[in-house]
């Protein structure tokens, strides 16, 4: 494979769904491999093993004594070995964006509207256990939404992607972290009934794509282009309910009332047609039905009687008891409006059958109405329960003058509407170094231009793309979780001619205990 030879054929898959770690692990089978390895003499029978056994036992005993006397050191070393920087690493742990916990019933359609106006449409039965089993009980959704740089920053979700060691930063038009649990067991989405996200933003650019954060491979996966709607109506719950009730009713076998037989009018003419009973079940119990034409016999009707018609179509009209009969042969057609009637003895038999059928129909109708009332009551109570479950935690706003990006998801996790962030050429490049209270720092520094919905992480000797006409802020988190800032007024004082600059960030005395503390500071320009 590593030889430079041209290959026969190659198949290209773009954006193939990522296989999960759980699925990969299901293929693991160490025992099968070890059984295949060429059988060798068992280790306990080897001469060197027996000869060194005694020495090993002595050495192990000495080692155990040493370990038992140095338990503390071993513990510390193990801790060091397992330490690693988390992929999602909230910079101020106590101010991480909390999850909103919402309880829903999985057996009915649910629409959740978040404070921003973003909606999540969860079809009935769309949530399953990890083993793909249906779940009918109440489940817990945990949701977080990030719409602006402050909350994105606090989440610690990486907004960069690495390609060939080059880092690109994402600008977001809305990001959601969503998961479902039952008894703290993580659930998954039924791929047959994906969940729809309608993410609200104010940026109407068509450049934003949907991305999923693969925390195993540690990168963002492109998931297509969301559809964009302006002022999308996000309050469709009532319509959805009516539709749902209608669907439930349609599941009941439809009741067909028998047609009251009519006597033929001796002054009118009629046509005999064999009706397919499965198409018109109201005639099912009647024999010898005739179709009385609703107009006098005319000259044209002579042609009708002499023609051997190839096709006859019978249809109901909007008038009760009135049908249309369309006769055709090639391009020749003739249409009559007709009523089903009976003559003589056939009428007497039909009327008797009608009386029996109608009595049965009345009983069936009563049962049907009772069933419908039960279905309606159950459904309404489920809806009421659903509303109670999440109305207390979610503010249901009506969206106005905002852009809604819609896409379907088949995995729980972090979903984002992003575009690759790029600076316009009008910006000034500054080789930046950073200090906190006059002392050089190697901590990460975060740069935000308020015109762009992105947080750019900077390091010593990074290039900062400065726009003198924009409102820009730099901040850093000190080792004791305090904030140091370089505010927009200080940016205005940077001399135009400089291409190198040391940004001296001032530590604030304010303590950050909750996400609101940071978000309020950010919104007020850290004043």
């Amino acid at each position: 494979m590593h030889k430079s030879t041209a290959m026969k054929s190659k198949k290209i898959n773009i954006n193939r769904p990522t296989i999960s770690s759980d699925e990969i692990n299901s293929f693991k089978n160490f025992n099968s491999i070890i059984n295949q390895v060429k059988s060798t003499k068992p280790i306990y029978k080897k001469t060197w093993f027996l000869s060194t056994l005694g020495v090993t036992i002595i050495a192990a005993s000495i080692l155990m004594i040493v370990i038992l006397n140095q338990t503390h050191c071993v513990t510390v070393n193990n801790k060091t070995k397992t330490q690693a920087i988390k992929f999602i690493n909230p910079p101020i742990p106590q101010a991480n964006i909390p999850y909103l916990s919402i309880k829903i019933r999985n057996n009915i359609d649910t629409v959740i509207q978040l404070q921003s106006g973003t909606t999540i449409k969860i079809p009935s039965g769309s949530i399953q256990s990890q083993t793909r089993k249906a779940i009918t009980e109440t489940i817990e959704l945990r949701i977080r939404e990030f719409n602006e740089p402050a909350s994105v920053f606090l989440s610690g979700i990486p907004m960069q992607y690495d390609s060939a060691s080059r880092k690109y930063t994402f600008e977001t038009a809305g990001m959601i972290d969503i998961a479902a649990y039952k008894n703290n067991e993580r659930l998954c989405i039924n791929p047959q009934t994906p969940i729809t996200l309608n993410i609200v933003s104010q940026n109407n650019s068509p450049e934003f794509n949907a991305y999923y954060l693969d925390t195993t491979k540690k990168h963002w996966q492109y998931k297509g282009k969301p559809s964009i709607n302006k002022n999308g109506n996000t309050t469709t719950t009532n319509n959805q309910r009516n539709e749902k009730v209608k669907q439930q009713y349609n599941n009941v076998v439809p009741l067909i009332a028998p047609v009251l037989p009519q006597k033929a009018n001796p002054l009118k003419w009629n046509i005999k047609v064999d009706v397919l009973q499965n198409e018109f079940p109201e005639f099912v119990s009647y024999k010898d039905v005739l179709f009385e034409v609703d107009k006098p016999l005319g000259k044209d009707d002579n042609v009708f009687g002499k023609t051997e018609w190839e096709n006859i179509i019978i249809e109901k009209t909007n008038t009760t008891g009135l049908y249309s009969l369309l006769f055709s042969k090639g391009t020749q057609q003739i249409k009559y409006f007709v009523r089903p009637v009976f003559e003589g003895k056939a009428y007497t038999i039909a009327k008797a059958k009608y009386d029996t059928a109608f009595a049965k129909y009345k009983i069936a109708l009563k049962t049907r109405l009772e069933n419908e009332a039960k279905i309606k009551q159950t459904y309404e109570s489920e809806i009421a329960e659903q509303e109670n479950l999440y109305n207390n935690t979610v503010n249901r706003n009506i969206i106005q003058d905002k852009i809604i990006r819609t896409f379907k998801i088949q995995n729980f996790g972090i979903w984002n509407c992003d575009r690759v962030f790029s600076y316009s050429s009008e910006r000034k490049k500054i080789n930046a170094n950073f200090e906190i209270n006059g002392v050089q720092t190697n901590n990460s520094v975060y740069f935000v231009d308020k015109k762009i919905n992105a947080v750019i992480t900077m390091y010593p000797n990074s290039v900062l793309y400065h726009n003198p006409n924009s409102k820009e802020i730099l901040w850093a988190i000190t080792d004791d979780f305090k904030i140091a800032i370089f505010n927009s007024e200080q940016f205005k004082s940077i001399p135009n001619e400089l291409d190198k600059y040391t940004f001296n960030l001032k530590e604030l005395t304010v303590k950050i205990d909750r996400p609101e503390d940071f978000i309020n500071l950010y919104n007020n320009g850290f004043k």
Partner: protein
Amino acid sequence: MLINHKSKEQIESEAELISAAQKDLRKFEPIYNIYFERVFRFVYQRLDSKEEASDISSQVFLKAMENIKKYNNYGIPFSAWLFRIAINEMSNYFTKQTKERTINIDTIQIEGILLESGIEFENEKIELLINSLKQLTEGDLLLIELRFFENNSFKEIGEILDITENNAKVKTYRILDRIKQMIVKHA
């Protein structure tokens, strides 16, 4: 990424595991557990079938266990040695089978290659890039995959392919130049 950066402690810990496995193959299991997912993903990246990826991954570990005594950790990292075995197994598989070689690529990776080639990312360039990837030799494609799809450093690529870091870099940029020429020619 195929080969993650390892701390000194992690390297020492891995060396202990390898040493134990060299003495008793049953002790190979912790190594198998560490590397199975990465080897599987590497193989599956080049195939359509999960089952075949599982079979080839098993073959990789079988070979690794049969040859573990020959592995010398003073030469190349264990992971690079393991992925050399994986590459050879894939090569054998495609030689013996008539199955299609698969290239699995994300839009982000397409963007990455285009940006690195100095080509502006546009929808019509995606198809041209895909066509140019199809025309690459297996060796060239492997370099592009290791660098852009699996995000290895040139040092890691060098270790896997048994070439110098600089050679890996020069070869990769020559391939990117060729890709650029193919795209520009047809744009």
